[in-house]
């Protein structure tokens, strides 16, 4: 992707983040039960949905790599997983703040929280595996782990349906949300997805440059020998 396109995406992302913050703090009404704390929802839920997207992309490119064995697919898969892990960290850190106010506890071993923590740990394992193996085996093994780890995403999503949850609303449960809140959430979701896309492009570019550097370095070492 061209440098100009990346810059345009960066500017659009910055504008969307700014607009979303304005909408969250200046436009969206204060909710009746959680009051100001409810505003955490806009970035918390948006980050959670971006995690699905990131790990979904990781799974798609991992499968693509296993079929076609193109190094670029492996780079894209690992870049998506890295960003998914960042967004998942945000979900796991902002959630307990909500929990502390709403349920008077920082952490609760309920299905969705536990499965999200398991998801986070699986992708931490993905990067431990990548750093532990040499380049030829690294791509194949991490692609397999990427596909396996993605199986936890539907478990996280449907956790409240599979098991009774005391804290998270059941998936598909009808909840009234005012239109200004809905618009604010949509903009926040779009802002985080754009941020993900922008960082993915940047990270992919960096990984590609790193790979080229390693290839040239190995060539030089061979020539020197």
């Amino acid at each position, binding site marked *: 992707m061209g440098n100009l396109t990346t810059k345009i995406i960066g500017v659009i992302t910055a504008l969307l*983040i700014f607009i979303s913050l304005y909408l969250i703090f200046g436009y969206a009404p204060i909710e009746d039960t959680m*009051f100001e704390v409810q505003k*955490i929802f806009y970035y918390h839920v948006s980050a959670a949905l971006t995690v699905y997207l990131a790990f979904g992309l990781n799974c798609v490119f991992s499968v693509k790599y296993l079929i076609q064995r193109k190094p670029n697919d492996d780079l894209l898969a690992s870049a998506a997983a890295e960003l998914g892990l960042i967004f998942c960290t945000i979900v796991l850190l902002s959630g307990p*703040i909500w929990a502390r106010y709403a349920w008077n506890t920082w952490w609760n071993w309920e299905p969705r929280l536990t499965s999200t923590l398991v998801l986070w740990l699986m992708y931490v394992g993905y990067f431990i595996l990548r750093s532990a193996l040499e380049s030829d085996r690294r791509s194949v093994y991490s692609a397999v782990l990427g596909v396996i780890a993605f199986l936890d995403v539907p478990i996280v999503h449907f956790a409240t349906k599979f098991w009774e949850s005391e804290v998270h609303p059941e998936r598909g449960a009808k909840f009234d949300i005012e239109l200004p809140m809905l618009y604010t959430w949509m903009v926040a979701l779009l802002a985080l997805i754009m941020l993900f896309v922008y960082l993915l492009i940047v990270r992919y570019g*960096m990984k590609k*440059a790193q790979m080229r550097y390693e290839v040239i370095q190995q060539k*030089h070492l061979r*020539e020197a020998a």
Partner: protein
Amino acid sequence: MRIFVLAGFIVVLGLCFFATQIPVSITSDKVEEAVSDAVSESELPVDGDIVEQVVLRSLEILDAGQRRRLTYLFGAYIIIWLVFMLYVLRLEQQQRLLNQRLTQLEIISDVQETDQEQ
């Protein structure tokens, strides 16, 4: 990119700090005035001092509750931006390291070419 994230984080941090410092818009003078008006308008016998104390205490409770909620809210947003900022700083560091390595590689390549020419 690093400057953009740093600036964004500082702005959010500043907003959070100032938002939690917002004073209560209803001061004790205003309460005293409102209670006095309400007592004078009331048809029932009311002790103005007691009503004023109750209203002031209610305001203190509401104010404390709001401060607590704002602390949670801005705490969450600060953590969110802190994670992004640390990640971008790490990317920046990796990019700098890669540039240094590429420069070293170019120098080695130039030296090898010179040796081959000689």
